[in-house]
């Protein structure tokens, strides 16, 4: 390093140096006036992409996050062999009628597969808040806040990366479910697209919720507690694992205010042609559009208030 500097100073005369300096100054001034993008959305994709790059550069994280739904599908889905409750002397047509009555489909595995799509979305969205906590802890949040990037863009970036990740994981879970024997008779481009638009809305709403809860927190233990507190009730007090019709009346009322139930209901109606429904398809969509819009807007409004103390 030292010789480099000395040789440079020997070879350049003072005159050359001043010319060089002048050039550098001009270049600097020329570049010093870039036309800045001042739209409130600038930086949104940069922030989203930052988290996505971290995710796909680390495939172990993806694999581990997929293990859980696969275990549920493989062990829970196959273990709950409801067919064994029905005497084998009952003719198959009547067996199917019993299944259709409770589950709306002819086998439990398909019923659970649809539930697993919302399961993976719920669990991915829950951790959207964690990356906010880490960014705060390691100072990246303060760096972002000291730039003119929109406060809303910071929050929306966190939500978007979670939405994109959760939808990709849901797609992988769907493929695995089909390989494991999910009923594919209703599968088409339209039903898959419809299902994923419902999952998008659910993911957007849930991710906004968890990001919002993490906005002020820099403590990951608290955040973990919040995740556990919300995740399991949202899962069990929904129709993800079991049909709502077999639940006691009070629980049915809880299930009916849980947006996850409407996502499951819509996915089952579209993807599996379920005959049992919680609400008509248009109502499912309305509930989830409302859910995503309200929580998304709330997240942006709160980010203006909470991100600076």
């Amino acid at each position, binding site marked *: 390093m030292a010789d480099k500097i000395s040789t440079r100073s020997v070879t350049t005369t003072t005159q050359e140096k001043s010319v060089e300096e002048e050039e550098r100054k001009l270049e600097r001034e020329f570049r010093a006036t870039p036309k800045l993008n001042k739209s409130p959305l600038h*930086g949104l994709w940069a922030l989203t992409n930052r988290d996505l790059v971290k995710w796909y550069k680390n495939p172990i994280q993806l694999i581990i996050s997929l293990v859980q739904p696969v275990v549920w599908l493989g062990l829970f889905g196959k273990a709950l062999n409801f067919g064994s409750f029905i005497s084998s002397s009952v003719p198959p047509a009547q067996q199917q009628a019993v299944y259709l009555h409770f589950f709306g489909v002819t086998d439990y595995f398909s019923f659970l597969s649809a539930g697993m799509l919302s399961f993976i979305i719920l669990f991915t969205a829950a951790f959207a808040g964690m990356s906010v906590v880490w960014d705060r802890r390691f100072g990246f949040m303060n760096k972002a806040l000291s730039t003119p990037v929109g406060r809303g863009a910071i929050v929306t970036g966190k939500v978007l990366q979670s939405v994109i990740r959760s939808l990709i994981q849901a797609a992988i879970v769907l493929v695995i479910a089909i390989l494991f024997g999910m009923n594919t008779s209703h599968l088409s481009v339209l039903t898959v697209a419809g299902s994923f638009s419902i999952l998008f809305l659910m993911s957007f709403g849930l991710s906004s919720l968890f990001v919002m809860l993490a906005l002020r927190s820099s403590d990951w233990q608290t955040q973990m507690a919040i995740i556990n507190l919300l995740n399991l009730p949202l899962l069990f007090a929904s129709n993800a694992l079991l049909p709502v019709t077999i639940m006691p009346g009070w629980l049915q009322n809880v299930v009916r205010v849980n947006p996850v139930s409407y996502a499951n209901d819509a996915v089952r109606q579209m993807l599996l042609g379920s005959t049992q429904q919680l609400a008509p398809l248009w109502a499912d969509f309305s509930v989830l559009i409302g859910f995503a819009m309200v929580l998304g807007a709330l997240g942006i409004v709160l980010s203006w208030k909470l991100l600076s103390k």
Partner: protein
Amino acid sequence: MSSQESVSVKESSQRPIMVEVENLSKSFGQLKAVEGVSFEIKEGEIFGFLGPNGAGKSTTINMLTTLLKPSGGTAEIAGIDIHKHPNEVRRNVGVVPQEYTADEDLTGLQNIILCGDLYGIPRSNSKPHAQELLKLVELEDAANRKVSTYSGGMRRRLELACGLINYPRLLFLDEPTLGLDVQTRAAVWGYIRMLKEEYHMTLFLTTHYLEEADSLCDRIAIIDHGHIVKIGTPAELKENVGGDVITIGVAEVEPDISGDIAKIPLVKDVKKNGNQYRIKAEIGEEASIQVIDTVRSKGLHVRTIALTKPTLDEAYLELTGRTLREEETNRQQMFSQRVTMMKARR
């Protein structure tokens, strides 16, 4: 005296003011972190905040960089009000935070470009500029390596480069050399001086290292318990201690000329010890010449003379009543400092 005053007034009016802070304060619940701080920073100046941990240095920087909303008072940066136009302030200043904030999983170059994106700088501009900045901080060879492989000094330099991506007129540096070894610290000081001299940038830094404040800053504000105790050039702060010490050795032990030396206006105190006089004086450089003149005018001969300047340590002690101490801070701050130190030593 009056001519000196008019000169300083003229000088300050010629140099535009970059930062003007008036009565800025911030309280967190009961705790008053900053209480009515007022100061000015002129363009092209290196201004330092010196004080112990928890004195309110970072809180003040965070208010000026619009991360925290002040509880009271006003501040203008380059004539822009931090309350009314926070985004304009953000576009005009660069921030080098205390922590290492670069994303470990991205490369150095990607990190700088990400910063550029956050400022809304088009990639066509930010890409070449990022390369320039990496060259400036001598990281061009490591540009495409993940930050997780960087050493502490490299990370600090990367933070510096990130803080410069938006061509700031004013750069905030929060504890720029925290946890760095002596060599890297000297390198960072070199960059800071270069930014002032070559790029005519205004710099505002906080530190709790006395030698850092002393050697880098044009002016220092000593801050303690949320108050500015004193503002001045390092020399002025030291003079505050009670002056320089001149030790003069005279060939002749008799006669005693202490009384004559004491008559010099700059001299405060004289003590004779054999053929040596220990003289406390205000401006040592000027006073020593006058002392020599006095000695010679009495027909005596000067053998030795020494001038010792008070250190900033003593000034600090005098002003705050204690040496710089490590004070306990809150958990989050401790954590982030630990992370910073840990990465710095890697």
